[in-house]
């Protein structure tokens, strides 16, 4: 087993990994940029190492600085969390070369998933249904136009190296496509250093449903049921649930089973081990693979709360060479859970709102858990993503979980900066949300200020 774990991340996920690792008897090492020196994740670890100035490129994304911190602290394992270096095969390889246990999938599997155009091809070969689209990256604007004619407008132009909606654009006709192609290629080059883009058919109102998978790389690979993440803004998830309202009370059981099977087929095709997520769109009764994420997801707690499985604990054990002893038939969901991403942003204009948390009082109550990266008095700087905390609420049924969520959101007190809590309240009070008729454009039509 890893003895001393370096947590190559910040905020709520660094704290969460730290708690699990300490609970398993490991020592922990936090890292921090100058902007984060006073934050809880730095105080709570067994030791903490400064890795550089505030900009992510010079700190949390700086592989050399992270490896140096591991050396200086005597760490023998690294957990990358999500975001930052978590999906970098280069970082995983560098850890292994430095004699550190990397908590994540094999670097080869990461590389296969990172190129999303190639991942589509691999998943398709494994018999997983794909969103209709180009076979791989399209060479230029002219090739894109030919492909779009074949697929049919509207199409989604996506960066092969992309993520989080960066380098993604919709085109309804040939003129828009030319613009979208250029825009995606430019953004992809700026953000990811590669300009390869591919095309997918654009579904007008799909649901986003994903499967948590976990495997030990020694023959045992299971899925831990589905999550629905249809409540999004600019392709960023805002609310997630386990499970999906689409499958409540045994509805659509055939579809659910087929998706679970496809998730495992996709993970096998990538040579996957450790925890990962296979994402699908569901439209008109069909399901379509979009991508697989080679890391722990932000929304993993809703799976943990409803299945009792400790995903981070298993990640650490699997990385240390242990076998996964949970069998597929052992995985059962009890109750329902929702996660609300509490962002430092204006709930009407959606502008970032950094500043000092004059008041920060998370709610308490039955089934309520808050994973926060900050405490009262802390400064939220503009350098990192706007996630302040995750409010996670469980109940015996979806209705009970939503009722509890409304009370918890009402009781969540934040002053000093603006947050999206009012948006979450509009969502949980929305009739369509309550009914569970969700799609990824929900927020364009519902829960308006």
């Amino acid at each position: 087993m890893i003895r001393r774990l370096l947590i190559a991340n910040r905020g709520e996920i660094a704290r969460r990994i730290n708690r699990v690792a300490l609970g398993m008897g490991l020592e922990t090492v936090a890292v921090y940029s100058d902007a984060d020196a006073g934050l809880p994740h730095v105080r709570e670890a067994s030791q903490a190492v400064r890795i550089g100035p505030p900009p992510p490129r010079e700190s949390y994304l700086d592989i050399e600085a992270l490896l140096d911190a591991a050396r200086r602290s005597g760490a023998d394992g690294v957990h990358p969390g999500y975001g930052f270096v978590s999906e970098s095969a280069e970082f995983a390889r560098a850890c292994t070369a430095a004699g550190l246990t990397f908590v994540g999938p094999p670097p080869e599997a990461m590389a296969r998933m990172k190129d999303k155009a190639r991942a589509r091809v691999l998943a398709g070969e494994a018999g997983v249904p794909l969103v209709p689209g180009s076979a791989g990256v399209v060479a230029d604007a002219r090739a894109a136009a030919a492909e779009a004619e074949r697929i049919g407008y509207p199409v989604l132009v996506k960066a092969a190296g992309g993520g989080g909606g960066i380098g993604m654009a919709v085109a309804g006709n040939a003129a828009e496509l030319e613009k979208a192609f250029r825009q995606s290629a430019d953004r992809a080059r700026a953000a990811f250093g590669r300009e390869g883009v591919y095309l997918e058919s654009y579904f007008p109102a799909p649901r986003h449903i994903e499967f948590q998978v976990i495997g030990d790389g020694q023959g045992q690979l299971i899925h831990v049921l589905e999550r629905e993440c249809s409540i999004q803004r600019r392709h960023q998830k805002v609310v997630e649930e386990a499970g999906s309202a689409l499958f409540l009370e045994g509805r659509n059981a055939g579809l659910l089973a087929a998706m679970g099977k496809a998730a495992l087929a996709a993970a096998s095709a990538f040579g996957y081990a450790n925890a990962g997520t296979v994402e699908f769109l569901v439209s008109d009764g069909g399901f379509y693979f979009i991508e697989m994420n080679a890391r722990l997801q932000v929304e993993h707690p809703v799976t943990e709360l409803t299945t009792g499985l400790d995903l981070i604990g298993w990640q650490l054990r699997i990385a240390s060479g242990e076998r996964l002893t949970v069998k597929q038939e052992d995985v059962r969901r009890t109750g329902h859970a929702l996660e609300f991403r509490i962002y430092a942003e204006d709930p009407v204009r959606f502008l970032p709102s950094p500043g000092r948390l004059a008041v920060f009082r998370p709610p308490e109550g039955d089934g309520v858990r808050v994973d926060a990266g900050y405490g009262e008095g802390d400064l939220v700087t503009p350098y990192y993503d706007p996630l302040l905390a995750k409010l996670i609420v469980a109940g015996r049924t979806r209705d009970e979980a939503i009722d509890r969520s409304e009370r918890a959101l009402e009781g969540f007190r934040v002053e000093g900066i603006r947050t999206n809590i009012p948006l979450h309240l509009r969502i949980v009070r929305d009739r369509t949300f309550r009914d569970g008729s969700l799609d990824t454009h929900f927020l364009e039509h519902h829960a308006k200020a």
Partner: protein
Amino acid sequence: MSDVAAHITGTVWKVEVTVGQKVSAGEVLVILESMKMEMPVEAPDPGVVKEIRCQPSQPVNEGDVLVVLDP
């Protein structure tokens, strides 16, 4: 003369204009970055760039003047 100020706290990512340049209303002058989002700062009215008071990677607060325009 009009002062164009930052509408959010963040860092300057790009300055899209140079001193002496003629700009039309709505033209992007500066792009700010905050919390992983890019925020364009546009010219409120047409004018000529008289002064640029920021540079790339400089931290700015909401309300700081970034560009001064001559009508």
